């Protein structure tokens, strides 16, 4: 897909969301699913400052969106199935915090609190909701809770037990990245990011309903690279599906932020 097309799509959707609104903060209210591709697209197009403003607003909006769904689905009996939970919204909140480089710790603390609620592991179809395990592992890693390996082992076990090829292709590399970060092993982290790029190529970019932004940017890989640099790992990954800004110290310095 050409850069012009990505630019046109991002510009059009950005203008549509901002129409009649006073700020980006207002524009994202209830529209996180439409605003996130704008933020990612701006990052891919090299408009990093604008992208950060969108990620910043999205970080808060994803939490509101996820909390509203969490309360509606699990606030009273009978609780909905684990597969219907807002886990993806919580992961998006963490990704946006990392990519926007703001509010990382308070955001992750909130996510960890929700995904470790006492009833979560008793929900129907819990073993099929791998996003819960990924959210736990990601937040444990970011907050250094000491439970990363336990969370990663749980994620790995449920994914392998289920044996779905796309789930293996997505989550095994995620485990590799987070385990590599915990062990300060750059080779493992790079291999995990490469695995996520392969998942993006085979299961996201090639999907029949993939949009221009989904095709252009491998979100999981991009967020994991930002996370690795935040955690002090001096790595770069040159790949067309990872925005160039991720490799620049100017935008994502190695260690020492938030």
């Amino acid at each position, binding site marked *: 897909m050409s850069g012009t097309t990505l630019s046109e799509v991002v510009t059009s959707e950005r203008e549509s969301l901002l129409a009649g609104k006073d700020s980006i903060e207002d524009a994202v209210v209830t529209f996180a699913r439409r605003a996130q591709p704008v933020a990612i697209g701006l990052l891919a197009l090299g408009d990093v400052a604008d992208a950060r403003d969108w990620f910043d607003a999205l970080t808060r909006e994803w939490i509101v969106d996820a909390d509203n769904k969490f309360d509606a689905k699990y606030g009273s009996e009978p609780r909905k199935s684990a597969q*219907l939970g807002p886990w993806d919204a919580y992961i998006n909140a963490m990704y946006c915090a990392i990519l926007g480089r703001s509010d990382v710790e308070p955001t992750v603390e909130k996510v960890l609190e929700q995904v470790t609620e006492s009833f979560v592991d008793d929900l129907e179809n819990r073993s099929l909701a791998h996003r819960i395990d990924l959210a736990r592992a990601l937040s444990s890693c970011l907050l250094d809770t000491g439970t990363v390996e336990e969370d990663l082992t749980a994620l790995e076990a449920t994914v392998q037990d289920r044996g779905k090829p796309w789930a293996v292709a997505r989550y095994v590399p995620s485990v590799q990245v987070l385990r590599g970060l915990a062990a300060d092993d750059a080779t493992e982290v790079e291999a995990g990011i490469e695995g996520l790029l392969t998942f993006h190529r085979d299961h996201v970019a090639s999907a029949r309903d993939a949009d221009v932004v989904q095709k252009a940017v491998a979100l999981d890989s991009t967020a994991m690279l930002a996370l690795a640099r935040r955690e002090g790992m001096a790595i770069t990954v040159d790949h067309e599906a990872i925005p160039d800004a991720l490799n620049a110290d100017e935008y994502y310095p190695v260690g020492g932020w938030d």
Partner: protein
Amino acid sequence: MSDVWIEDRLQRLVDNADTEERKEFIRALADEDGPDAIEISERNGEIGLEDVNNENLKKELFTYQDGDQTGELASDGLRQIDAEEPRLDSVEIVKIGDVFEGI
């Protein structure tokens, strides 16, 4: 058709509720005295989807035989492009409220 898939589609409808007409349609889906198909909240005049009331949705699988020529042409045409494409001889419908009454 899974509950996850249905919620995803309803979420897309709500995500695109950026005109008053579309917002009214979403509010109608949430009407407790009507379909009561979804739970919504409103912030800054915009609508957010909170939950889907799956118990108020009905799923039905329809199998049909189209006219000989058009049916064969349509299904054969799709299969020539991709053998994995669904055939146009069955469709699963999600019924919300009484919108299909009399059809």
